[in-house]
């Protein structure tokens, strides 16, 4: 049974998050000793995947040194990168496999140390027992986008071949999938088409739904370089974020209405005849339908919907259309919506209509949120895909991958549920068991109370991780896995640059590499012959073959080549191929006809509309010092100091209406639940909108408030738009 085996306090006491501030050996003592080696590797956090050198001494990471030669970030790091080295020596680190045992002493918090044979055997036995009782697909597997590409590949193969379930998906479902679907529809391929070195070359930079300063800090440098060259900066966001204050044009779009803004801009461009006829004719299909679809979205109509002034919409459209080079950047702001795919398609339509594609300094790009958000979704842990970004439903793709794996294509399951759908299937009793690696759904999925109810219902829950996340409190078994710096592998950054994660240290003596754990589990599921891997290199060699000929072709990528070139952009189909920084050179798409497609978009309302009872828009997001569900970053003292607790950003006009002053406790209520946090009264947010960051669990969890409406195509939840009501909390209600 998957209820937590001990009280929240007991679990907190034993497993943290505790704050860790000092390097191994202390500031003034041992850590002053010189490093034995500097390991050139990358940050384990966001999709920027900054280069960093880890200082290693006696098999411990004792500090870092900036890696200025790495071209993407040239030594720059955000505070998460600066403090990431402290996670290896963290006292909360899981050092042994754990089995749930409610009879152990209270200070063990319901888990006892197990030996590996026992823990692995138990996991395999429970998986098979449940499958025998309820069918193969009663077991689901979760992966994560912080895993290396090799591990992501293994998760997909393990789920389909070792467990034999249809249901494998990953936390990247909460990140990039709307953009992925849109880029596939329009360009036939899912990757940002341009390297970041193009950004400074744009004459107009249009950033929509991306809080770059907090969520992709290194990209700021590229944005400022663009401005120094005279580039104009347009930013659309409900909040005047740290970058937006330097914008030449700020579009304060109401949450969930980006599509209306984009269609309004397209309307202006077509109305004024500013489209690039030659480009449209040579490189695109579907333009006539697009024209019709934006007919009704005159600036007035768009302004009514978005709260952006009509003349600002006109100006933005004109600047982009008249620029010689323009780039549109977007991220979760437009993607985390029940029309996330449409939003991204509308950005692409804008770029295509104005001909800003296929030459240097022009294009569009999604800014990856998760570390290996790009690479983690290319090789088969996504519920509908096989390695190489091949589609699981494509017979030729199944044939190819089955041949590499040495099976018949019929043995490959068909596509299963996406991440949130898996949780819903658990809730309704269809899925009975879950094996999760690198995913903390209790904090990161929407409607957290619902997620908790689902976890409580699991008949078996196994977790592979290196810290005990809040979700793992529900586990029956926890297999102590490896940190990023403990296992070699590839990752793919936001640009599509494949980079090399170096192994810096060994895992602690009784923890294991994730690769070893998956292979050992496969052995106990009687599928050893498909998982003979001793090293990441062996996994990569198979992955190279499996991806060969696919869109995300890694055949020409080896660790040595990545090191030599400081990263290689895929596709890289042969060992002498230089890689492909510009994916859509000459605006040639990956569709069979080589054309880019206009895909029309249609307005629809949010899945959680504001009304009289819930009159305020709630939007959620990140802060710079925390990463995703905070499993790692809520344990690092320096990062917690920067921003210790979630704050409610609220405009003075709205605050005054409810008698709320800065620092007051405020209760937010949505159609799901309520949360009480302190107010940060500030003029940098729309007065009809409030914001809270989502990195915290329990009573401070923003995702208790969010709803489970999904984009029908990408299945991304609508984190960026909920309806809420607010009231000042009395002291007794304060549970902050």
């Amino acid at each position, binding site marked *: 049974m998957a209820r937590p085996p001990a009280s929240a306090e007991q679990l907190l006491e034993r497993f943290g998050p505790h704050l860790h501030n*000092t390097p191994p050996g202390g*500031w*003034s003592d041992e*850590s*002053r000793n010189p490093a034995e080696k500097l390991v050139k590797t990358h940050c384990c956090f966001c999709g920027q995947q900054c280069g960093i050198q880890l200082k290693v001494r006696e098999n411990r990471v004792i*500090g*870092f040194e*900036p890696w*200025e030669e790495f071209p993407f*970030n040239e*030594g*720059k*790091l*955000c*505070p998460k*990168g*600066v*403090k990431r080295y402290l996670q290896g020596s963290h006292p909360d680190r899981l050092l042994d496999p754990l089995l749930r045992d409610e009879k152990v002493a209270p200070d063990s918090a319901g888990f006892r140390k197990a030996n590996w044979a026992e823990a692995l055997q138990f996991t395999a036995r429970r998986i098979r027992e449940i499958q025998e009782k309820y069918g193969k697909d009663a077991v689901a597997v979760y992966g994560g986008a912080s895993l290396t590409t090799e591990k992501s590949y293994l998760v997909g193969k393990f789920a389909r071949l070792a467990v034999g379930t249809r249901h494998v998906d990953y936390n990247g479902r909460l990140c990039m999938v709307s953009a992925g679907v849109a880029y596939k529809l329009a360009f036939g391929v899912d990757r940002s088409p341009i390297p970041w070195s193009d950004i400074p070359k744009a004459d107009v930079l249009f950033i929509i739904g991306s809080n770059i*300063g*907090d969520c992709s*800090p*290194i990209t*700021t*440098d590229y944005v*400022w370089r663009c*401005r*120094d060259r005279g580039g104009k900066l347009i930013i659309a966001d409900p909040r*005047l*974020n*740290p*970058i*937006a*204050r*330097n914008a030449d044009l700020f579009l304060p779009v109401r949450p969930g209405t980006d599509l209306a803004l984009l269609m309004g801009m397209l309307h202006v461009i077509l109305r004024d005849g500013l489209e690039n006829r030659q480009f449209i004719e040579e490189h695109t299909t579907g333009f006539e339908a697009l024209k019709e679809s934006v007919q009704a979205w005159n600036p007035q109509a768009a302004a009514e919907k978005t709260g952006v002034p009509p003349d600002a919409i006109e100006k933005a459209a004109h600047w982009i259309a008249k620029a010689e080079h323009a780039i549109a950047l977007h991220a979760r702001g437009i993607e985390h919506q029940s029309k996330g795919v449409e939003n991204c398609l509308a950005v692409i339509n804008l770029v295509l209509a104005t001909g800003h594609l296929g030459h240097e300094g022009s294009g569009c790009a999604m800014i990856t949120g998760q570390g290996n958000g790009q690479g983690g979704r290319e090789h088969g842990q996504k519920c509908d895909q096989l390695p190489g970004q091949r589609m699981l439903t494509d017979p030729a793709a199944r044939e190819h991958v089955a041949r590499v794996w040495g099976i018949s294509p019929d043995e490959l399951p068909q596509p299963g549920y996406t991440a949130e759908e898996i949780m819903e299937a658990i809730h309704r009793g269809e899925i009975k068991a879950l094996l999760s690696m690198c995913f903390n759904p209790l904090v990161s999925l929407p409607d957290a109370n619902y997620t908790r109810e689902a976890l409580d219902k699991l008949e078996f829950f196994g977790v592979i991780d290196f810290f005990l996340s809040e979700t793992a409190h529900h586990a029956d078994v926890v297999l102590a896995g490896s940190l990023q710096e403990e296992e070699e592998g590839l990752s793919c950054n936001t640009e599509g640059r494949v980079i090399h994660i170096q192994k810096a240290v060994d895992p602690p003596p009784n923890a294991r590499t994730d690769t070893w754990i998956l292979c050992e589990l496969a052995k106990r599921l009687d599928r050893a012959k498909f998982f003979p891997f001793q090293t990441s290199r062996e996994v990569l060699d198979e992955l190279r073959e499996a991806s060969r000929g696919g869109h995300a072709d890694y055949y020409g990528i080896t660790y040595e080549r990545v090191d030599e070139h400081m990263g290689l952009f895929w596709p890289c189909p042969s060992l002498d191929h230089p890689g492909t920084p510009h994916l859509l050179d000459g605006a040639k798409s990956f569709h069979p006809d080589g054309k880019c497609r206009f895909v029309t978009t249609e307005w629809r309302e949010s899945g959680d509309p504001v009304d009289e009872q819930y009159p305020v828009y709630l939007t959620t997001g990140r802060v*710079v*010092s925390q990463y995703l569900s905070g499993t790692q970053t809520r344990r690092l003292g*320096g*990062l917690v100091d*920067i921003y210790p607790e979630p704050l409610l950003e609220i405009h*003075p006009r709205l605050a005054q209406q409810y008698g709320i002053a*800065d620092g007051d406790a405020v209760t937010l209520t949505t159609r799901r639940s309520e949360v009480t946090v302190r107010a*940060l*009264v*500030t*003029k*940098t947010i729309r007065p009809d909108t409030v914001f809270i960051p989502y990195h915290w669990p329990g009573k401070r969890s923003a995702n208790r408030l969010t709803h489970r409406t999904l984009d029908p195509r990408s299945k991304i939840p609508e984190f960026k738009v909920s309806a809420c009501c607010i009231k000042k909390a009395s002291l007794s209600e304060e549970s902050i």
Partner: protein
Amino acid sequence: MFGYEFYVDPSRCIGCQSCVEACEECETHRGVSMINFDYLDRYETANTAAYVCWHCEEPTCAMVCPADAIKVGEDGVVRSALKPRCIACSNCVLACPFGIPKIIPEYEQMMKCDMCYDRTSVGKRPMCATVCPSQALSYVKPEQIAKRREEPTNLFVFGNQHVKTRVHMMTPPGTDAVSIDVVDYMWEGHLGQFGR
């Protein structure tokens, strides 16, 4: 490092505090961050400012020190107070026009940014300016800074006190000096010599 200068540009600061976190990694003051970081007025704006010691040519902190504990190195870097001499009297803290020095109670010593002389002396850039993701703190050659929209200045006017610093502030083009007092911009006939 020869030919490199330090530039501060609060208009580019994104408030990430990477500098604050990285500063404590510095060899000369491990575990203690010397960066000054402020939200200007969070009610009004998201603007933030991170800055280091400005390393004055004639440092006020050194001038007011009764123990002669604050020294300027040959590299022009104003050091933390010398431990054997510092009496932790806080004169420097009160006198510095930029609010830089800090008394660290547990050490009974004034400590401040030393521009990572342990790093710059061996050809590395200061930690904060190396990691800063947003060009708010930069340690680069003047020709690189010339590509920016803003221009550097290193003259600060505090009433009658004109302070020339080693570290530069990025300002709107055409700014000769940074003055913080309206009086500095006024004409007061023969009474005052405050104008520029």
